[in-house]
């Protein structure tokens, strides 16, 4: 069950807010201090990618981010509503379950005009030790997670 769910309109200014919220919850969940910069950057990349996709395809639709602390891991899922047909096809060409390598492969298959968008996915793949990318005609979902210690703060 999600600890925190956040929706925000597709404005670049809100990406910073999403980063701050994710980092604060990661810290509370018990993610090691050394990993917090990676969480902050990966969540920022995922949200930036989503904002740019929404601004092209559906600027009025919100972007959703879920932050969970189940099973000793801190898990972040960023879901957008912009069609990602190219990514979906690229994903189908990959064998096996989604992995960090698949994320990089997906990025390399993006058209040139979305270079930095795909670059963001490649960066996420390098930052989180568990990344899954789910492209579909209805939008893209990026799920990433990091280990969290049981010593994390619990809600008062």
């Amino acid at each position: 069950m999600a600890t925190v769910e956040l929706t925000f309109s597709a404005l670049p200014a809100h990406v910073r807010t999403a980063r701050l919220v994710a980092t604060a919850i990661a810290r509370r969940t018990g993610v090691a201090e050394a990993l917090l910069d990676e969480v902050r950057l990966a969540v920022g990349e995922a949200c930036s990618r989503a904002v740019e996709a929404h601004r092209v395809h559906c600027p009025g639709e919100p972007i959703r981010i879920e932050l969970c602390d189940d099973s000793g891991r801190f898990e972040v899922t960023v879901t957008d509503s912009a069609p990602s047909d190219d990514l979906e096809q690229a994903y189908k060409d990959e064998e096996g379950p989604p992995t960090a390598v698949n994320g990089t492969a997906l990025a390399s298959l993006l058209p040139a005009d979305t270079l930095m968008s795909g670059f963001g996915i490649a960066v996420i793949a390098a930052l989180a030790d568990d990344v899954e990318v789910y492209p579909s005609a209805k939008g893209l979902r990026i799920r990433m997670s990091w280990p969290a210690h049981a010593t994390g703060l619990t809600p008062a």
Partner: protein
Amino acid sequence: MDLKLDHRTEDRLTIVEVEGEIDVYTAPRLRELLIDLVNKGNFHLLVNMEKVDFLDSTGLGVLVGGLKRVRAHDGSLELVCTQERILKIFRITGLTKVFGIYASVEEAKEAHGRDK
């Protein structure tokens, strides 16, 4: 933290001071500054990132775009950065091989002077 930008020219080197966060919201301002500098004939740029708190791929894109512009004029775009959190994204993306990265403005100026 918002983005603060400043620049000055020493000899033939234009030093761009950047402070704050470079992300999808603020990167367009850095892009505009770099384009403006190049359009005004500043083809040797040194971007000081020692006070940058955050850099994402949007910011990297702006720096790569700036590099392409100055190279079109046989210029250079180099960086000053010692922060591990910022250097990490350059390493992840392999851009440490693309940009000259120095530990200080003085070190970069010395290297630039040798190359002239």
